[in-house]
């Protein structure tokens, strides 16, 4: 090969090497600048598809979009079949919400169902159809419940896409809106039994769903003791001891007590009444599994006993207290928690 030919070959090899290097750099840059594959899958016309994410699936993904929006924006969520949801969002809070659920067979006469909810809107005498009626400065429980229902309906329609648009200006700067945490709890309370993203056994009963209770605990009354022990992360033997020690520490402050696992003490008829209260307490979702907590409720009527509910990792306790001993019971509970091995 001539000198010129060798030089040419070396030049070609160097060029190929440089090309390869450039290709690697370009590929690396492309990886760095690419949108995350899950939540930002690009679709035509500037819409992104939402991916179901645990624990609630699409509603969680929808709320994550709200939570990620700080500047004032109008997020429009589209579902197959024409249903859409316009959400005015600012500072991670949902200020205004308009759901156009399209032609749905479940609605009256198959007509178009539209829900326009102004959350925390400034007082307005013009719009008497608004659920807020110009009274609220923040979302009430009923508003949150209706919102959760609308989000649930939309997400049931199938995969959602989202498009971020400039704010429409329908919301007053005085609007407080509602935070994502409250909406997330409301949605969790509405989650169907065995629904998307829910662990088996982690559900609300019908009473809790209809009441809009915020905690999505299991229906503990339906769990057998072995299941509860399994939920207790293998340390179930500690909890009954703690509860027993607590009841013992209460002494004469306790008129009657009852454990969810069946043991009871004190005045017999009152202990029977506590059984029903304990079931109601658990069925309403106030006793989420695996959490240690205590709550004491003091009725208005002075001749009605306060009731203490305590929960450790695998059992729930109800105690009818002497009047005026609520603070003492809470103080003893904190003391028992501070000294679990005493």
């Amino acid at each position: 090969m001539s000198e010129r030919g060798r030089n040419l070959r070396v030049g070609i090899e160097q060029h190929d090497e440089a090309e390869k290097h450039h290709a690697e750099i370009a590929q690396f840059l492309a990886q760095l600048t690419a949108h995350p594959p899950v939540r930002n899958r690009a679709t035509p016309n500037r819409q992104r598809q939402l991916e179901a994410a645990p624990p609630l699936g699409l509603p969680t993904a929808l709320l994550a979009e709200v939570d990620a929006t700080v500047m004032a924006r109008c997020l429009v969520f589209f579902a197959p079949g024409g249903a859409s949801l316009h959400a005015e969002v600012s500072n991670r809070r949902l200020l205004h919400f308009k759901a156009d659920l399209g032609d749905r067979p479940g609605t009256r006469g198959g007509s178009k169902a539209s829900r326009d909810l102004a959350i925390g809107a400034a007082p307005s005498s013009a719009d008497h159809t608004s659920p807020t009626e110009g009274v609220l400065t923040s979302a009430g429980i009923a508003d949150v419940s209706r919102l959760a229902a609308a989000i649930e309906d939309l997400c049931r329609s199938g995969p959602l896409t989202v498009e971020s648009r400039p704010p429409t200006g329908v919301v007053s700067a005085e609007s407080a809106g509602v935070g994502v945490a409250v909406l997330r709890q409301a949605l969790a309370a509405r989650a169907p039994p065995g629904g998307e993203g829910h662990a088996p056994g982690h559900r609300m009963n019908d009473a809790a769903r209809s009441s809009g209770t915020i905690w999505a605990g299991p229906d503990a009354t339906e769990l057998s003791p072995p299941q509860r022990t399994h939920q207790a992360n293998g340390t179930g033997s500690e909890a009954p001891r703690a509860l027993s020690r607590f009841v013992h520490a209460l002494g004469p402050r306790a008129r009657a007590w009852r454990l969810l696992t069946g043991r009871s003490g004190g005045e017999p008829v009152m202990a029977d009444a506590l059984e029903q209260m304990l079931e109601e307490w658990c069925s309403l979702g106030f006793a989420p599994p695996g959490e240690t907590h205590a709550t004491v409720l003091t009725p208005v009527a002075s001749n009605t006993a306060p009731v203490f509910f305590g929960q450790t990792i695998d059992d729930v306790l109800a105690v009818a207290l002497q009047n005026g001993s609520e603070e003492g019971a809470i103080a003893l509970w904190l003391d028992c928690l501070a000294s679990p091995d005493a």
Partner: protein
Amino acid sequence: MSLSTQLEQLKERTPGCRSVVFGDLSAGTVLRSVAAPGVRQEVHDRALFEACLLLGAEGASILAPVPGAGLDISAAASADGAAGTPRSLAMGGAPPDGRAGHGQTAPEEADDPTEEPIARAIRVDAGGVRLMYRGGEQGDDMLVVTLATEEFAVPDREAASPAAREAALHRIGDACRAVLAGDE
């Protein structure tokens, strides 16, 4: 003294206090709040939402009388109620003179004579200690005081005996009732 000043003083005088939220039960609305730095609005919303449930219809349904029990735990309350909350209002019904009250709640709550209205709830969990009081002229005002558990139930057992904690809870309760009653 303004309500905001009262809330601020309540927070400053309560060791371990994270937030004080004043709200309306019927609307589920935070009306005033003061908080330690870093406490987000969502925390206030959740505290009030929880108080609405415990002091509202859900809490009342838990302590509903048990038919046939015949004990004072399920006995009908006196007509006048207690703790400064007229029973008719706390139940969501109309005031005794028949006026439609601002404190009216859901009709089903008002129509159910068996539900026992809740005047106060105290809850302890991973989120801290929350004292929830209901009062005011219409019985629909709520005050929620959130205490940090680690500061309230300090490991120093000498300084935080059950008796000391009980006394602290009593003091906070008295202060809350004074705010709800409008005392200065």
